Every structure is written in C-alpha cells, then in structure tokens.
C-alpha cells in the first residue's frame, strides 16, 4: 500500500511536469511568433522607407536635370539667338540700303526663322520647367496648360476648383499634382480620342484631390497592369504618389470614357523651401 501511495505522487508530479512543459511550449511559440512578426514588420518598414527615398531621389534628380537643360537652353542658346537676331537686324539695315530685292527677302526669311526659333526655345524651356506653377500655384499653372492645349486642338477642356483661392501647397505636392494632371490629360488626348476633358481640383483640410475625366473610349487599368501594357505614364503616376502617400483610382463612369482620381494627404507647409535652380527668376532670393 505504501508503494501505491508513492506511485500516486510520482505519477502526479510527472504528469504535472509534462503538462507544464507543454504549456510553456505553447506560450513560447506564441511569444516567439509575435517577436518574429514585429521584427519582420520593422524590416519591411525600413525597406519601404528606403525605396521611397530612392524613388524620391530619382524623381528629384529628374526635375533637377530638366531645370539644368532648361537653364542651358535659355542661357546659352537663348542668348546666342538674341545676339543672332541683333546681328541680323544690323545686316538687314545694311542690305536695305543696297536695295536688292532678292537679298532682302532672304534676309526677312532668316529673321523670321530666328524669331520662330526663339519662340520655340522659350516654349520648350517653359514645358520643361513649370514656372507658372512655382510662381502662381496650381490653379494658374493648370489654366495655362489648358490654354496652350486648347489653342491648337478642337478639344474642350474644362477646369473647376472648389475654392476661388486655392491655398498654396508644398512645392513637392504641387509639382506632383501638376505632373499627374499633365500625364492624365496627355493620355486622354493620346489614347481616348475624346472631345471633352474635365479637370476638377478639390481640397479640404485633409486631402487634395484631382479628378480628370474624359468622354473617350475608356480603359480597364487592371487589364493594362496584368498585360504589362502600362507605359511610363501610369507607372510614373503611381511612383510619384507613393512618395507623398497618395492614392489613385481609375473608374469607368456610366456614360463612358474614363475617370482618374488622385488623392494626396495635405502635408504641413515646410518653411524652408529649397531654392530651386531657377532660370527665370532674375531677382536674387536670400534664404
């Protein structure tokens, strides 16, 4: 009987030990799993931030490069063209004294060619760097962009904003929105064969949203992504938005065409704007 009593205790203790052990195994696995997941998440975050930084740098250097080209065009070729125009004017005076009809017509032709080249260079530099955007803000810049497009197209482009005075946003955000608007409108013109494009810019205290709607053939963004048809345009929109935490949605309105909505959370205006390489602003700005 003594034996049986001892046996009882041995069994009980052994069983309890086993049970405790499995209990701790369960707890350990839960704890370990949680730790691993947290680490993984941290790593992911770091990677995401790094990618964003990379993208940001790439886009920034693109803009810087554009500015450099614009500046070179303006300063070198622009100046040279102005000088050429001056020389041609002098030449013109000399030729008109001679009174040769033929020489004079050639002269007129070269003069107008130079004038035209100057205009072209001006236009290209302005396309490269949206100066209006920097000086007057999004509303002005979009209106200017539309005016230029409507000049040589039979398109009707309408533009609304929900406020008269669109508050200035951070430089990066404005540029992002402007470039997205440019790409969306260009896409509509290139692919949609539409007759009307509507641009709506809205802002509240949390989001700035831009909607571009056309009445063309429409498209399915999922299909385009699946079939790898996306060009630089749509991808560029996404990477630009990724930097500023924005989102884009493409919709198919019932009445046809396509509609894209880009939303960007409003960022606090950073005080010290980095002074851009500014080819057009003549006055010196002291920071």
């Amino acid at each position: 009987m003594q034996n049986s009593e001892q046996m009882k205790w041995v069994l009980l203790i052994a069983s309890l030990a086993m049970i405790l052990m499995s209990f701790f195994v369960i707890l350990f696995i839960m704890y370990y799993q949680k730790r691993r997941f947290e680490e993984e998440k941290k790593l992911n975050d770091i990677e995401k931030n790094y990618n964003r930084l990379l993208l940001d740098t790439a886009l920034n250097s693109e803009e810087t490069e554009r500015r450099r080209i614009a500046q070179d065009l303006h300063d070198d070729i622009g100046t040279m063209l102005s000088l050429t125009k001056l020389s041609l004017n002098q030449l013109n005076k000399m030729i008109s004294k001679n009174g040769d009809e033929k020489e004079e017509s050639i002269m007129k032709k070269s003069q107008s060619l130079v004038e035209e080249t100057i205009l072209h260079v001006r236009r290209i530099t302005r396309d490269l760097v949206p100066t209006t955007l920097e000086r007057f803000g999004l509303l002005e810049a979009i209106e200017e962009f539309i005016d230029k497009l409507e000049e040589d197209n039979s398109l009707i482009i309408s533009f609304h904003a929900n406020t008269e005075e669109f508050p200035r946003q951070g430089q990066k955000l404005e540029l992002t929105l402007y470039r997205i608007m440019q790409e969306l409108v260009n896409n509509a013109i290139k692919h949609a064969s539409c007759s009307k494009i509507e641009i709506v810019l809205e802002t509240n205290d949390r989001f700035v949203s831009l909607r571009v709607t056309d009445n063309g053939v429409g498209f399915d963004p999922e299909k385009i992504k699946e079939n790898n048809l996306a060009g630089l345009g749509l991808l560029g929109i996404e990477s630009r938005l990724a930097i500023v935490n924005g989102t884009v949605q493409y919709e198919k309105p019932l009445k046809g065409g396509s509609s894209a909505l880009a939303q960007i959370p409003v960022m606090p205006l950073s005080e010290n704007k980095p002074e851009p390489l500014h080819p057009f602003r003549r006055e010196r700005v002291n920071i």
Partner: protein
Amino acid sequence: MIEIYISFCQKHTFICIAVFITFIPLIVSLFKKTYREASFSSLLIYLITKLVIDLTMFHFASIKQSTVVYYNISIPVYYALIGSMFYHKFETTRYKKWLIWSIGLFTLFSIWDMVYINPEFSNLHEQQLVFYSGTVLSLLMIFWILLYLYEIMLLLKIPNLLNFPFFWVCSGFLLYFSSLVCIAPVLHYAEKWNNPLDIGFVYYVPYIFEIVCAIFISVGLWNFSFESYAKQ
C-alpha cells in the same frame, strides 16, 4: 435504464463530463461548417468517432461490463484520424510521408499489442488493456504536434496565432496527450477487472485534460472562417 446512467454519472462525474463535452466542439464544428476544409473534416470525423466510442463505453460501463476492448480498438483509430488531420496541415512533403508510414506502422503495432496482451479474444470479461499502445500514441502525437508547431514557427505565415483555429486544436491535443503520457503505462494495471493498483485521483488527470482539450478545440473552431482559410 436512465437511472442506471444517472447513478453512473453521479459516481464518475469527471468521466461523464469528458464523454459529453465532445458535443460542444462537434456542434461548433457543424455550426461553423468547418468540414469544408480538409484537415477540419478529419477533425470532425475524429470527434464523431470519439463520441460514438465514448458513448458505447459509457453504456457498457454503467451496466458493469468491461469496456477495455473498445478502448483498445479506439487507440489506432484515433491515431489514424488525428494523424490524417496533421497530414493535411503539414506543408513539408517529407513530414507527410513520415506521418503516413507512422500511421500504418502504429496500426500494426497496436494490433500486435492487443493480440499479445489478450491471446484469448473470446473472453470479453478477462480482456486486458493494451500495454504499450497508449504511451506510444501519446508520444507520437506529442512529437507530431511539436513538429507542426515548429513548422509554423519557421514558415511564419500566421500573424496572430490566437486567431488561428488550428493552433488552438494543437494546444488542446498537446495538453491532453502530455497529461496522458505518464499515466497511460499505468492504466494497464489500473483498468484490470480486479483492480490491483489504485492510483486514486491521478486516474482522473487525463479526463480533466480531455475536457480542457475539448474546450480548446471548441474555441479554435469558433475562430474558424472559411474565407480566411482559403486565402492561406
């Protein structure tokens, strides 16, 4: 008849709770339609089989007949059913192969065990409990559960284990089998007709953890949602 059952219940409360608690995971399982997923359909079959065997044993025990033979048969059946549940869950093909082999070998082993202990099958009253099978079953089950937990730890696919039904099922079984593993070898003596070894309350420990296991399984099954499973 009913009075007999009731008086049996009053005498062996823990055992009866352990028998009837199987209804809870069973009902949850049917309610949540968990059988749409392969491993959980194995679990459902296991629960049904367990309930049937337990109720049979309950009946014969209450009319004072030996239930040992059902216990002996149930061991390889449980192993096959729980094993097939893990078979669907393992992602490593090597483990799956091992598991299949172990089910086959264990079935042969437990049949041998049964025949070796009871050479005369006809005498139901003198049947003895299998000697090794219970312990081997517990050890094998603990091994597979730990292996599975190790696998999910390595694969790192499940963000929150508490929402993961199978983790609860594993934990329940792990607790039950680790409570059984030390006691199973002694049961051979304790369950004899002329009980030579009285281990007293220790005898009830596995029953208590059977109840705990059923509760764990019910909680796990309650967390089940087919949609989230399909995604994994």
